[in-house]
């Protein structure tokens, strides 16, 4: 019951955060200098055309009214129409077409980063102060220092232009061919994952080292349990909580990286849509994309809270 209450409160908080966040995005996009009607129709538009455009898109309504209308439509999945693309594509259709690609590359990157960091962090901590530790720790700080998009081009240089193993540009949608998506998504995912793995493994190493020193671990040693038994039964699970929290906190950096990496590899994801819309000054689409990213980060944080609650039931008590 306590657990349910704990999650319920978290979900309510997340929803409130989402509403306020959407409001902030809405206000930001409406505070942008320049008139949306002028941006859509061009500077040479006649006053009549501008007036009818404003009326058609309800631009003369009070801001609160506009936000309410927009939010209500957004809840039914309607995020308005693009003003820059011919034919007025709906924003929802643009996002529905691109979101799976972003989630695929982002999720793929997350899995790679977690896999690398679990191995590297555990080895570094259990071989503390020795060769393996020094190697893992220096590797981590070097990878953290590389801009991810530059790393992307270096990977292209080696694995596409040099060895020809992976495509340098372009992305096969997971709905078309899953194998193709893994193949074409590997380099972008790796470019995002490597610096992430550096951050994650440093985090894991620190928390593992701290846990090694806890009294219950020392007493387990004194009772004569084997090293690997102690590691898996006493240390690892307790060290996982800060590790999972750290991963959750990195969600905003991870998705930030996705935005730039999508441009490098030509992945048609939400980030690409958003940057294109920003260039075209298509504020409705930028707004829709920003809210989608907001939803992803908030959902991730909720998931992390749930995981931490499961790992450490005391939190919900």
């Amino acid at each position, binding site marked *: 019951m306590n657990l349910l209450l704990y999650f319920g409160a978290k979900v309510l908080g997340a929803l409130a955060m989402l509403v306020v966040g959407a409001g902030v995005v809405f206000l930001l996009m409406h505070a942008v200098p320049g008139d949306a009607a002028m941006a859509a129709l061009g500077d040479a538009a006649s006053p009549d055309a501008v007036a009818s455009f404003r009326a058609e898109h309800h631009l003369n309504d009070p801001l609160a009214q506009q936000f309410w209308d927009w939010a209500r439509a957004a809840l039914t999945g309607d995020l308005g129409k693009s003003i820059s693309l011919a034919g007025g594509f709906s924003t929802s259709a643009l996002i529905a077409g691109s979101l799976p690609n972003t989630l695929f590359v982002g999720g793929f990157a997350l899995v790679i980063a977690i896999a690398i960091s679990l191995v590297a962090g555990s080895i570094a901590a259990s071989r503390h102060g020795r060769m393996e530790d020094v190697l893992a720790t220096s590797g981590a700080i070097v990878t953290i220092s590389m*801009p*991810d998009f530059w790393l992307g081009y270096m990977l292209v240089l080696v694995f596409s232009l040099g060895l020809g193993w992976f495509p340098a540009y372009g992305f096969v949608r997971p709905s078309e061919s899953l194998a193709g998506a893994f193949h074409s998504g590997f380099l972008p995912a790796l470019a995002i994952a490597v610096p992430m793995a550096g951050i994650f493994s440093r985090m894991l190493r620190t928390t593992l080292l701290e846990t090694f020193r806890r009294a219950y671990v020392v007493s387990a040693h004194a009772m004569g349990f084997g090293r690997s038994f102690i590691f898996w039964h006493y240390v690892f699970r307790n060290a996982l909580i800060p590790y999972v929290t750290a991963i959750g906190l990195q969600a905003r950096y991870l998705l930030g990286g996705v935005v730039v990496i999508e*441009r490098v590899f030509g992945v048609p994801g939400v980030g690409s849509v958003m940057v294109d819309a920003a260039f075209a000054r298509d504020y409705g689409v930028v707004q829709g994309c920003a809210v989608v990213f907001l939803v992803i980060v908030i959902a991730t944080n909720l998931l992390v809270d749930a995981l931490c609650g499961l790992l450490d039931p005391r939190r919900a008590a």
Partner: protein
Amino acid sequence: MTAPRKPGSGMWYTFRSNRVAQAGSAILLFALVAIVLVRLFSPYDPNDKDYMSILLGPSLEHPFGTDSFGQDVLTRVAYGAQVSLLISVAGLVLGGLVGTVIGMASGFWGGVFDTVTMRFTELLYSFPTYVLALCLMLLLGYGSRSVSLAIALVYVPNFARLARSMTSATRAENYVTAARLMGQSPARILLREILPNIAAPLLVQFSAGLGFGIIMEAGLSFVGLGVQPPTPSLGVMMADGKDYFQKGPWVLTLTGFSVAWIILGLNLLGDGLRDALDPRLRRRLS
């Protein structure tokens, strides 16, 4: 009789015995000397276009090669590093000041103000970095000033949280109580008693943030939404280099390598500072 050690010399001593911080300083010093030397002695101007020597690979005359305008890449990196670093420093100083003031105030007084500011930082934490930056760019227009502001906005919540937790931990210390009993004003207590004692972690955050600020400037300019050419920031140069990456990979490769080099120095220095300034952590991990 030995002279008493000057205050602060303990920090210098730990710095001297800290290999990580030394490595970081050495890397940064090398970069700094290289930048100064190139700027003093390079026969080229960063904006000198030479259409007779377009996209030349690295050689003795052009150690980093030339770009699509025949400009010397090494010279441009030396100038661009200054632009990028200044943008990052400006962003971090602004974000650090605002975040620290907000965080110290909410840690010191608590109450409703504390609740509101912490919700506000949580909100900022919920936006992916580049999404926040991109919205800000649209609002303020592209350019170095907006990039600095975007970096500041990304770092305000980090500093606010850090300053808040450190301040509320320090508030109960005896010397703060003593200052309060002596009738010192809250402003004086915050500035003279608390700030010096929480400055170290803030400094570490600043040093680590500088590197990320450079990455963020590079990323935004790389996409075309940050610093605009012809201002030679490192991000602008990398964006330019990606357009002819197959014909002249050295432009993007070596510019990015210089970026990574500087950031590595900053990160090592930040790590070393953290270890040196936080003896509790160091003891626990040694």
